[in-house]
């Protein structure tokens, strides 16, 4: 992961198991706001806030109209809320360690309009799906595995996203855009960054999924769970021989 500024062309958008960046023209704002309660008394030195009453959202996705399978037009057709991941690559395609905005949002609309002759769509997303709340209000995590195909278990070392272990849990987010059978996607952690040191991070697993386009998930682990310093992705192939996926982890 490089550091520094970047350009919008390095933003990627994954939602509901679809890769949408080739259709998207803009998205945002990526919202992370906390309510401020107007209950401040005269004796309070600072105005109070509500630290766990967050509003999250990804604003409006504006994109080109494309009804090709697994493109933007497929998204509103599938019912329910959508797991969304927005990795931001730093002057290059997103790589492990790059920031990712994550969440589960409903689509509030799907508006096809004309823009200078081209057919474009505006897709406003709503707040976090209240039927699928988790015990965390932080949307920003780090990319563990950029979109790509894997055909074997991971024996590589991981990334150091925080510089130290934490004990406040977190959640794993994944999107599968292609595959040919069953597989399990996991996040592993380790105290030292060597292959033998990694083991499964308890609870951070997709479970057995049928890998195909349109598969995604957001899996929270316990709020007091220990997460060791180094993180990496892992895959257990069932009947699948190849799975194309992206994984992020939000460490609290």
């Amino acid at each position, binding site marked *: 992961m490089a550091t*520094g*500024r970047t*350009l919008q*062309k390095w933003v990627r958008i994954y939602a509901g198991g679809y890769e949408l960046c080739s259709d998207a023209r803009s998205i945002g704002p990526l919202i992370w706001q906390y309510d401020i309660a107007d209950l401040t008394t005269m004796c309070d030195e600072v105005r109070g806030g509500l630290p766990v009453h967050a509003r999250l959202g990804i604003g409006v996705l504006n994109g080109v109209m494309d009804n090709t399978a697994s493109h933007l037009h497929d998204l509103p057709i599938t019912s329910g809320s959508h797991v969304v991941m927005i990795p931001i690559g730093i*002057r*290059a*395609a997103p790589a492990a360690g790059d920031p990712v905005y994550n969440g589960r949002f409903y689509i509030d609309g799907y508006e096809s309009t004309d823009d200078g002759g081209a057919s474009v769509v505006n897709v406003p997303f709503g707040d976090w799906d209240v039927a699928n709340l988790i015990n965390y209000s932080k949307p920003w995590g780090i990319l563990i595995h950029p979109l790509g195909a894997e055909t074997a278990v991971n024996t590589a070392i991981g990334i150091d996203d925080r510089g130290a272990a934490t004990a406040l849990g977190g959640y794993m987010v994944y999107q599968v855009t292609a595959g040919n059978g069953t597989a399990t996607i996991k996040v592993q952690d380790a105290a030292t960054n060597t292959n033998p040191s990694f083991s499964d991070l308890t609870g951070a697993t997709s479970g057995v999924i049928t890998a195909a386009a349109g598969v995604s998930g957001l899996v929270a682990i316990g709020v007091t769970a220990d997460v060791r310093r180094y993180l990496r992705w892992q895959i257990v192939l069932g009947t699948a021989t190849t799975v194309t996926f992206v994984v992020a982890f939000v460490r609290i």
Partner: protein
Amino acid sequence: MTLAISTICDSISSLSVSGLTIKDLNEIPEAITGRDCPVIYPKPDGFVTNFEMVRNSFGGGSTAKMTVTYDLTYRLLGAPIGAGRGLFDSYSLMVEKVYAFIDAVLAVDTMDGLIDIVPADATAFGPVTDPAGGMFHGADVILHVMEFVN
């Protein structure tokens, strides 16, 4: 990050376009012959235009984040005018090379020295001169470049 015009021109000269010679900033020819064509090189008169700097953050010049944009003009020579049996024998080849060069720029994901590069314009299709004043079928291709400073 500092301005890197030499690196950028070197990167552009490293683009691969079949049948087209792309010259670096230090390779501008003094004169072109028919055997050198088709060739594209930094246009000596008016190579850099529309230079603009936008300050993106607080701080002194050594620390403030700045975005610099400018245009680079390259001249493509397809063939000497009158080199074929007809006046426009080589015209189509020249146009194809211009578009092949633009295609190569459009396909750039990352390029050493710069943050972003896009074709901005293609002008002067028709008779153009080489640095020595010889007449060629050619055109100018203008590339819009973005660099980050600090």
